[in-house]
């Protein structure tokens, strides 16, 4: 089976695609041509909502930029709705991107969770870190070129999104490629190192998917990393 076929199979079996197609009933709060907002039937708190893109994307980097932006405006409105309708005093907007981050289903979604004081959810711990380590992380994450280039790129937000759409159409089946193009990364070498490292680790978790991975490697060498994160769901 090709990677494409596996993805098709995954869509076919995706419970959220079925919900969107109304093959499975749900408690819908809002719906338009791009997204659907439903109540989670196994909520963290009652009123827990899921923002689902109507198209099947496994993880965040595969979602087109304009849709990412749109989904979060819907998350904002959902949060606002919950604050008003439930008389609560806080919400959390939560995204788990990849199985290791706690993503349970292979259909990308945003959670909007009503919060209660002291419920101990989504606690972000604070740890100390040395100035040296911070600096070394910063250097890993950015080169000077990146900041420059990003500045130019980001200024016209709309334009960027438009370009993205064009690219999107060109590479319909290779969505992650647009992600790569989006990440300004002039230093190919260091990236490859890390990616190979990741590939090794992920391969251990995914013995059965080696074939797929080989295909991916050939077709879109640059994207192994993102693809592997997404493919964790193919098991």
């Amino acid at each position, binding site marked *: 089976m090709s990677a494409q076929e596996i993805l098709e199979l995954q869509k076919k079996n995706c419970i959220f695609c079925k919900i969107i197609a109304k093959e499975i009933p749900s408690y819908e709060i809002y719906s338009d041509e791009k997204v659907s907002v439903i109540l989670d039937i196994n909520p963290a708190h009652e009123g827990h909502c899921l923002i689902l893109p109507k198209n099947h994307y496994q993880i965040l980097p595969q979602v087109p930029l304009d849709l990412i932006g749109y989904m*979060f405006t819907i998350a904002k409105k959902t949060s606002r709705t919950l*604050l008003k309708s439930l008389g609560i005093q*806080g919400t959390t907007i939560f995204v*788990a991107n990849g199985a290791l981050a706690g993503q349970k289903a292979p259909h990308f979604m945003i959670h909007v969770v009503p919060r209660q004081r002291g419920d101990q959810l*989504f606690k*972000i711990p604070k740890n100390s870190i040395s100035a040296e380590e911070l600096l070394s992380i910063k250097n890993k994450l950015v080169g000077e070129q990146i*900041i420059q280039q990003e500045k130019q790129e*980001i200024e016209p937000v709309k334009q960027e*999104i438009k370009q993205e759409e064009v690219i999107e159409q060109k590479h319909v089946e290779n969505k992650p490629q647009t992600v790569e193009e989006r990440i300004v990364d002039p230093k190919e070498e260091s990236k490859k190192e890390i990616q190979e490292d990741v590939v090794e680790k992920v391969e251990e978790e995914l013995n059965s998917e080696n074939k797929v991975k080989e295909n991916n490697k050939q077709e879109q060498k640059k994207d192994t990393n993102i693809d592997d994160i997404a493919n964790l769901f193919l098991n």
Partner: protein
Amino acid sequence: MTECDVCKIVNNKEAFHVIYEDEICFALLHESPAVPGHTMVIPKTHTTIIEELDDKIVEHLFVVCNKVSTILFDKLGAHGTNVIVNNGIDAGQDLPHVVINVLPRSENDGLDFEWTPKQSGQQVLESLQKKIQIYSDPIFLGKDELPDIKIQKPEQSITKTSSNNKIEKKENYQINNLKRLP
């Protein structure tokens, strides 16, 4: 009114580890990170909670979060990322300025954002759906005339030194406001 702690950062960025910046927002490494690589995406304009931000700004912020997330995948070899916005004191928001957390994840990193799923019955879900829909329609149509969400906003300048009394007072005020809602 004292300046917000986050606005102080905006005005003194050189002292922090900024990894991305544009006209609307910037992203910097958390000085007390949950995990190494913990990044905060912050709008430059002082805004307490995300509901107060324009759709355009929200769109932009999360496109930047995606960018950051992708960089964390590629450059730090993260195996996953979380994007978390805690809205309001009850949600654990501890700064009076919108902060979006982007966290790189790896195996056994000590982070746990799992919840115990509740089993909601059909009746509960149906009544919740009705209750929520009363409010959702105008909000999603952008015809929401009430801009004042009664959420507990963290006090201006909640720092490690700010007193609990101050927060308590604000809460009462907010709770009173809440009671006035229909």
